C-alpha cells in the first residue's frame, strides 16, 4: 500500500522532470499552424521541416560538426594525458612528487569562470583564437586534474607485484602502461571519455569567449546567437535545442551506469 503511494509520487516527479524535454520535442515537430494549441498537445501532423531549416539555413550542421570534432578530440586527448600523468604519479619515483600532487589538487579548486579573462589573453597570445586547438587546450587544462585523480585511484588498485613482474620480464614503462595497466583501467577510460565529451559538448563560456567567428562556432554559441536573433522562432529554437541535446541523451541512456559513477566521482567540476 505505502509502496504504491511512493511509486505514484515518484512517478509524478519523474514526469515533471522530463516534461520540459518532451514539450520541447513536441514543439519542434509541430507544423506552425499547430502552435496555437497548448504546448502539451502532441503534434497531430508531424513535420521535420524545422529541423531541416535549422540544420541548413540556421548553420547547425556546421555547429554540430565543430562541436563533435572538439568533443571527440578532447575526450581522446584527455584519456591519453591524464592516464600518462597518473601512471607517473602512482608507479614512478621522482623528486617533487608531493609538489605535483598539490599542483593538481589546486586544479580541482579553480573555477573556470574566475580565470576566463587571462585565459582569453593566453589563447590569443598563442594565436589560437578561433581555432579548435585553443578551446581544446583550455578544456584539457581545466579538467585534467580531476581525471589524473580518477586514473590514480584506479592505478593504486593495480597490484604492485604485477607491475614488478612485468618489469622483471623486460617490459619498459611504456609497455607496462599500455599492455598491463591501461587494460585494467578500462572503466576509468570509459568514464573519462564520457565525462570529458559531455563537458566539452555542453560548455558555453569558453566557446563564447574563444570563438568569435561564425565559421568556428559550436552548438552552444550557435544556439545562443540563434536565440538572440530569432527570439520569436519557437519551432526553430526547440529544434536547435533537440539537436544539441540528442547526442548526449543517447550516450546517457546507453552508458547510464558509467555516467552516474563518473559524475559522482568528478562532481567537483
Amino acid at each position, binding site marked *: 500500500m505505502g509502496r504504491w503511494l511512493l511509486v505514484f509520487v515518484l512517478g509524478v516527479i519523474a514526469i515533471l522532470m522530463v516534461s*520540459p524535454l518532451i*514539450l520541447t520535442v513536441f514543439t519542434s515537430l509541430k507544423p506552425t499552424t499547430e502552435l496555437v494549441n497548448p504546448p502539451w498537445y502532441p503534434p497531430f501532423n508531424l513535420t521535420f521541416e524545422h529541423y531541416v531549416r535549422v540544420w541548413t539555413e540556421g548553420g547547425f550542421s556546421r555547429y554540430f560538426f565543430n562541436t563533435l570534432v572538439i568533443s571527440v578530440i578532447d575526450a581522446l586527448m584527455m584519456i591519453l*594525458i591524464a592516464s*600518462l600523468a597518473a601512471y607517473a604519479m602512482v608507479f614512478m619515483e621522482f623528486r617533487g612528487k608531493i609538489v605535483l600532487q598539490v599542483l593538481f589538487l589546486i586544479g580541482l579548486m579553480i573555477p573556470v569562470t574566475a580565470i576566463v579573462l587571462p585565459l582569453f589573453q593566453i589563447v590569443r597570445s598563442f594565436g589560437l583564437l578561433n581555432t579548435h586547438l585553443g578551446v581544446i587546450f583550455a578544456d584539457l587544462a581545466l579538467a585534467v586534474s580531476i581525471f589524473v585523480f580518477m586514473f590514480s585511484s584506479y592505478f593504486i588498485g593495480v597490484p604492485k607485484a604485477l607491475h614488478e613482474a612485468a618489469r622483471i620480464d623486460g617490459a619498459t614503462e611504456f609497455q607496462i602502461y599500455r599492455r598491463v595497466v591501461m587494460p585494467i583501467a578500462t572503466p576509468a577510460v570509459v568514464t573519462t571519455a564520457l565525462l570529458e565529451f559531455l563537458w566539452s559538448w555542453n560548455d558555453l563560456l569558453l566557446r563564447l569567449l574563444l570563438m568569435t567567428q561564425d565559421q568556428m562556432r559550436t552548438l552552444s554559441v550557435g544556439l545562443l546567437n540563434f536565440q538572440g536573433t530569432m527570439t520569436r522562432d519557437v519551432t526553430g529554437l526547440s529544434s536547435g535545442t533537440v539537436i544539441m541535446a540528442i547526442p*548526449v541523451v543517447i550516450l546517457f*541512456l546507453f552508458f547510464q551506469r558509467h555516467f552516474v559513477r563518473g559524475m559522482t566521482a568528478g562532481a567537483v567540476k
Partner: protein
Amino acid sequence: MFSYPDSKWAQRLNPVLFLLPALTIYAVFALYPTYSVIEYSFTDWDGIRPERNFVGLENYQRLFTDKIFWEAFRNTFIWSGVIIVINVGLGLVIAAMLARVWKARLLIQTCIVLPVVISPMAVATIWRWMYQPAGVINQVLENIGLGALATPWLGSPDAVLYALALAHSWSTIGLSVIIFLAGLQAVDEDLYEAARVDGANPFQAFRFVTLPALRPVTAVVFILTLTQSFKVFDIVWATTQGGPIRFSEILSTYMYKRGALENQYGYGSAIGVALLVIVSIATILYMQIQNREDR
C-alpha cells in the same frame, strides 16, 4: 638486483615524459591564468594596450564601494541558497523515496538524472520559452486555477532570480539524488529493522535513522551544490544576461560584463579573484569532508 630494461637515463627521463603533456597544458592554460587573474587584479589594464600600471589595492577598494558588485554578491548568495534548499532538501527526500522502491526504480531514476546531461545552454532555451508571459508555466497555472500567480517570470524583478534558480535546480538535482542514493546504500539495513521492531513509523525511521547516517553525505552535497551554483554563468547569461536591470546579476555575469565586454580587465579580474577565493574555500571544505568519509 634485477636488471631493468629501461636504462638509468630512461628511468630518470620517464617521469618527465609521462608527465610532460598533461603538465604543460595544465600549467599554461590553467595555472598561469590563475596566477594572472591575481596579477591583473592589481593593475588598471584594459586588456588591449600593451602597458599596464600597478595600482595596488585600488580595484579591491572599488569593489567594496561598488553597489552593483554587492548586489551581484547578494544575488549570488540568494541564488545559491535557493538551489541548496531544493537540491539538498528535495534531493534527499527523492533519494530516500527511491531507495525504498524496486519496481520502476531505474526508469524513475533515469527521468530524474536525465536533465543533468543537458547543456546549460539548452536548459536556458527551454526554460526561457516555458517562462514566457504566455508560456507553458503561466498556461498551466491558469488551467489549475492559479492564474493569479501568473507573471512574466524572467521579466519580473521579484521572480527572475528564483525562476532561474529553479531552472538550474531542475538540471542539477539529479546529481544530488545519485550521491544521496549512494550514501543511502551504505546505511545498515539492521538499523531500519531495529527501528521497525521498536515501533517506528517510516517518517520516524527517516528522521532517526536515515538523517543521522547521511550527515556526511549531506555535507558533501551541500558544499558541492554551493560551489557549483557559485560558478554558474551559462544559464543566466543565456536567459537574462543579469537583467531585468540587475535583478539577476550574479558575480560571474558581472565579471564578464566588466572584464570581457567593457575591457576593464583589472577590475573584472578583482571580481574573478573574489569568485576564486569563495569557491576555493568551499572546495577545500568539500575535500576535507570527503577525506574524513573515505577513512
